[in-house]
């Protein structure tokens, strides 16, 4: 995400009339790469307005154009982004992900997060870890960690502590349970504040769930069968409407009890 200021006298009209569309008409509609968005600038006010372009939008000089296909969303007062269904994860700073430890080399663990490169996790980035008191992390363990460095030019780095030095839920986990992969859109739906899917899931039976923004979910219920049921429901509820989902959840909870 990046910020930029729009000069009130800027002339947004250009020769690409077919692709130029007023942004207010397009909110909630599907847009394609190459579409230019025109923002209504109030010429009476002389102050500069800030506009925040989220994922899927790029700035080219004074124009804002769409670079991924999806639905254009808007949040007051000035945030715009493209909502898309993607499967491949690209690391971004501040996101919490589930990684699998693949190698231990010297002072650093190599963690597979599903991106184009493996991320590095220092052994000192755990709560209470010192040079003498190393954390108990083996190859193949699952870790829930946060990116502190994630851009296109550098190797991504993870940490399992927050800025105060506390674990805050991060670290090694996953004895028992099942890890599986879903699309990034479903993961964002599950992590949104008033998620309906999570509320429906809570009614079926108790279970533990860890959701990583890289599309990986770990679940553990009391028995193996219940774990598999939850995993199957989550994998299949991507493309369902609310009514279909509720009917399936209802049938599952009847069969379990």
């Amino acid at each position: 995400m990046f910020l930029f200021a729009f000069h009130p006298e800027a002339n947004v009209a250009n020769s690409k009339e077919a692709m130029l569309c007023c942004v207010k008409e397009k909110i909630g509609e599907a847009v394609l790469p190459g579409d230019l968005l025109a923002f209504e600038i109030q010429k009476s006010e002389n102050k500069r307005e800030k506009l925040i372009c989220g994922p899927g939008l790029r700035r080219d000089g004074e124009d804002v154009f769409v670079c991924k296909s999806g639905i254009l969303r808007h949040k007051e007062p000035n945030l715009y982004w493209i909502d898309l269904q993607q499967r491949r994860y690209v690391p971004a700073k501040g996101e919490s992900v589930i990684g699998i430890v693949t190698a231990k080399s010297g002072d650093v663990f190599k963690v597979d997060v599903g991106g184009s490169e493996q991320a590095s996790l220092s052994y000192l980035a755990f709560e209470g870890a010192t040079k003498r008191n190393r954390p108990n992390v083996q190859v193949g363990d699952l870790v829930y960690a946060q990116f502190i460095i994630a851009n296109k030019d550098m190797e991504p780095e993870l940490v399992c502590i927050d800025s105060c030095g506390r674990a805050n839920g991060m670290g090694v986990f996953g004895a028992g349970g099942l890890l599986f992969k879903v699309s990034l859109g479903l993961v964002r739906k599950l992590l949104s504040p008033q998620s309906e899917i999570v509320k429906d899931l809570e009614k079926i039976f108790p279970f533990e769930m860890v959701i990583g923004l890289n599309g990986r979910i770990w679940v553990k219920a009391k028995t193996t069968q219940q774990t598999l049921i939850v995993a199957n429901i989550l994998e299949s509820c991507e493309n369902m409407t609310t009514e279909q989902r509720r009917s399936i959840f209802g049938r599952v909870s009847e069969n379990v009890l």
Partner: protein
Amino acid sequence: MMQVTQSGSFQHAAVLREFGCEHSLLSRPDGSASFVQGDTTVLAGVYGPAEVMVSKESFDRATLEVTLKPKVGMPGVAERSKEQCIRQTCEAALLTRLHPRTSITLSLQTVHDDGALLACCLNAACMALMDAGLPMHCLFCGVCCAIDQQGTIKLDPTAREEKESRAVMTFALDSTDCRVMMSSTKGSYTAAELQQCIAVCQRASESIFQFYRDSVSRRYCKA
């Protein structure tokens, strides 16, 4: 809708065969699409941005690899040359500088070839790249036309019409200005005929881009 107009000394029949597409039909690739033009069908799958071998990596951009498999037999020289055409078009449309030191792999499989294969591959590739969510600065489409022995320009020829014509041309056109991104031509034609073919293909590409827009809005509004 059949349009036969006479402009200057050329006649052209500007009608594309019926086309259709399907999104996200494969479960393993990050993006996949299938494009059908008449009887020609091509399946495309995209993986990326993914890990790249150190020997092939590029420090400032993503490395794009394209493989095209024919319906029967091993890929030969014709497939290799089509792969290069498709790769150059995709590299011009993708924002490869956003993902340096990664690889983007595009695999195309010919399900049935009834003429205009390169154009169908380009359309399937564009839909698959959009489906994978890779950043692009414009869309592209492929249009094929043939000039037969009498000088009539036929759009989207079948395999039989391609064999009987004296020139076959495929153009990749971009979505912002409808300019030619790539051209692959075979046979003999005059410079004026080339310009006429480009104009015909540009008019036809508008319907393909409108189809892209309709299929994307149907896909997202359904979810």
